[in-house]
């Protein structure tokens, strides 16, 4: 039985570890400035935890085989423990775990402690059951007033967001169902929600943030490659949660300017 347990535990360990190392299923290709740091911290954590995982499981499997009790065997080792060992491995574990955390904390600080750059592309991202809307402030650089009582989701676009037509600042706001941004320039997203909590998740950008009703949350990321990247909702928001997806299109600055200008023109 000891040998069987060893084999089962070791095989499970080897199989699990194989798929991690082979990256059979892995983080999608990252296309943002944050990718390098996050992915690197990921690998570091992964290696450390992986080593502990393999060591602990192998030790477990080995011990249950090596110390199997034959009926005629002498007694087990009468030991209540070893204080020195306890102190050593407690200290090492504490240094490892907390150290790992502290080493990775500048990444979090870089993402979250500072506000967006002044020249960032500003997009207001609004989640509602069950769609994402994106609003650009237009040439005046200001977002117009949007009121809950004016919201009409069935009409789409400006009406879905409840834009107040009497506010001059909202006249040039562009509302779209697809998020288009220029590459290599910081994007500031202002996250809002109308009804329940949603979450704006773009795996390729290594970006996620909950959109909370009653709050306007400012975050930023910087896309570094052009392409189309799927947006998923990552906070349970009701029966349509699974199909509340969007698309982030990252294009060159020229294309973005042309696209935005075209959207502005449509409003006339």
């Amino acid at each position, binding site marked *: 039985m000891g040998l069987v347990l060893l084999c089962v535990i070791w095989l499970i360990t080897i199989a699990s570890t194989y798929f991690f190392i082979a990256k059979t299923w892995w983080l999608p290709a990252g296309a943002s400035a944050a990718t390098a740091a996050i992915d690197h911290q990921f690998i570091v954590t992964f290696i450390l935890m992986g080593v502990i995982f393999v060591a602990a499981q192998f030790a477990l499997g080995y011990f249950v085989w090596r110390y199997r009790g034959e009926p005629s065997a002498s007694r087990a080792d009468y030991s209540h423990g070893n204080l020195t060992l306890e102190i050593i491995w407690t200290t090492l574990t504490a240094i490892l775990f907390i150290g790992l955390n502290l080493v990775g904390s500048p990444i979090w600080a870089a993402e979250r402690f500072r506000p967006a750059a002044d020249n960032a592309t500003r997009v207001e991202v609004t989640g509602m059951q069950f769609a994402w809307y994106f609003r650009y402030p237009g040439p005046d650089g200001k*977002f117009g007033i949007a009121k*809950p009582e004016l919201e009409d989701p069935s009409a789409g676009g400006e009406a879905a967001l409840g834009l107040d037509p009497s506010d001059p600042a909202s006249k040039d706001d562009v509302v779209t169902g697809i998020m288009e941004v220029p590459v290599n320039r910081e994007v500031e997203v202002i996250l*809002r929600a109308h009804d329940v909590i949603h979450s704006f998740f773009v795996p390729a950008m290594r970006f996620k943030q909950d959109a909370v009703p*009653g709050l306007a949350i400012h975050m930023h990321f910087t896309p570094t490659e052009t392409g189309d990247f799927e947006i998923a909702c990552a906070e349970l928001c009701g029966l349509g949660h699974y199909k509340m997806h969007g698309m982030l299109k990252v294009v060159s600055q020229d294309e973005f300017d042309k696209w935005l200008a075209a959207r502005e023109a449509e409003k006339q």
Partner: protein
Amino acid sequence: MASFTPTVPAHHPTTSRGKRADLPPVAGGGDGGRPDPGSPDYGGRLRRARLGMAVALTPIAMLFVAFTSAYIVRQGLPTFDPNTNKVVHDWIPVPLPTILFLINTCVLLLSSVTIEFARRQLARQVALEPVQSIPGVSLGRERKFPWLALTIVLGFSFLGGQWLAWSDLAERGFYVATGPSSSFVYLLTGTHAVHLFGGIIALLVAGLSVVLNRPLPSRRIVVDVTAWYWHFMALLWIYILALLEFAH
């Protein structure tokens, strides 16, 4: 007929909170010296009941800690106002019926005093019970002031007074859902009132146990732990009142 306090036999199955194995069993069930009034392990039961009450008060305290943190968070909460695209605070304190609350506070504190007298009265009764049953011994006819009944009356008065306070708030247009501050006023005072009512039920049970002739030590235990509960309710009320009056 006389009933002498029986000495506890050495092999009596009492528990002893893990005392050292080589000590002889303590008479009276290890209750710390309290005279055994004829019921096995009375001292142990009293100690256990008090420990249980101390433990029970902890989650009640946690309930109000949670409400307090919700109160403080909500007070300071900025919320996005779409009309101005700005973040605003919308907390408007409720003008409280302070006089009424203060009168109620006095009633409750008075009831704390009366229940404390009830508790001590009953403790004395229980201690003297074995003496009183000795033929030929008389301690005189004890006048027993109805402290327990008075506490129940005061408790109901407090609840009545709270009802008046809520009516006053309602008359001035502050209902539960009128605004965040009024919600909390009703929530905190209402939850406290529910818990106090539970204490009144316990006192009624204790009072009923007199009528039903339950043994004195059991009655004493009920009144004792209820008294501690009651004092906690009084302190809790003072805390709630202070929170509502000063923390806004």
